[in-house]
């Protein structure tokens, strides 16, 4: 199997990313589940680019005509999932922020004063 220049560049970059992920795992301080998810995505991308026939074979197994369609459908599902994830996070964060703003506002409530009457003009 002869790789094209693009495949070399893309697979090389993805291999570097995977090495970086492994180093990050050794350093610790992150959730293993999130690390695994990221690593699986990079690895899947590397394999799909290195061997495009693999997605074609997967497409046939799934009853989809073309490998490119498999990639497209996966991206659509991933996009929807990611959008919902970030919408949820954004909404929850907004609620927390609003609660904080509200509590601070109540703590710092001020009482206004009655307007003092304007000084009268001295009679000429």
């Amino acid at each position, binding site marked *: 199997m002869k790789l094209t220049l693009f495949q070399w560049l893309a697979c090389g970059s993805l291999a570097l990313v995977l090495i970086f992920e492994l180093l990050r795992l050794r350093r610790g301080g992150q959730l293993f589940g999130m690390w695994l998810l990221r690593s699986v995505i990079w690895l899947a991308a590397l394999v799909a680019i290195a061997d495009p026939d693999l997605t074609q074979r997967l497409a046939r197994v799934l009853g989809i005509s073309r490998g490119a369609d498999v990639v497209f459908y996966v991206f659509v599902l991933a996009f929807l999932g990611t959008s919902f994830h970030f*919408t*949820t996070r954004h*909404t*929850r964060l*907004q*609620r927390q*922020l*609003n609660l904080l*703003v*509200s509590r*601070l*506002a*109540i703590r*710092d*409530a*001020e*009482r*206004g*004063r*009655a*307007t003092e009457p304007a000084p009268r003009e001295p009679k000429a």
Partner: protein
Amino acid sequence: MDSGVFIIVRAFNEGARLGASLDGLLPRFPDVVVVDDGSSDDTALVALQRPVWLVRHAINCGAGTALKTGMEFALGQGARVLVTFDADGQHDATEIDRVIEPVLAGRADVVLGSRFLGKSERMPWTRWLVLKGGIAFTRLFSRLRVTDTHNGFRALSAEAARRIRLTQPRMAYASELMDQLRVQKLRYCEVPVTIRYTDETLAKGQSSWNALRIVAELVVGRLIR
């Protein structure tokens, strides 16, 4: 005189109109809470020139959050009846007695002002159409037989204000409040009120297209708990 009636006035960039609204309220209702929702104009200054409570949001959080803040503050001050009142002069302070009467008499936990039972001055036909759609939406989803929706003129007993759970930060809170009437099994009634539309309030107020945004916020809000 400590009547226990607290008027909650939400204000966002209402410096030009707030003073007149407060001057209409203050002679009869000494307990007024102005919630300045992160205004960039002189709204806070106008409020502080009068004997009212000023609760200031550091940033604009939306009408729903402002109402929650006002309710929480008023309850903390010992409110028995809470009235929500617009800052822009659309509501008539002389109608407050009529709005709070069912709560004071113990006949209702929540009183909703209805412009369709009362009067609407200079309401554009597009607003009329959107409101009628909103009423149909409320009747369908909240299963409440109401004649108006998204009317900011209401009265709540302290108990009702404690029980109502609002999560919607912006205008969709009004629909959520209707849902809560059913969920919390609160007794409610409608009373006729007057809404005055002016060129200024129409220019600044909600766009009729906001109805779509409100529906989207409600859907997302129901998915995310």
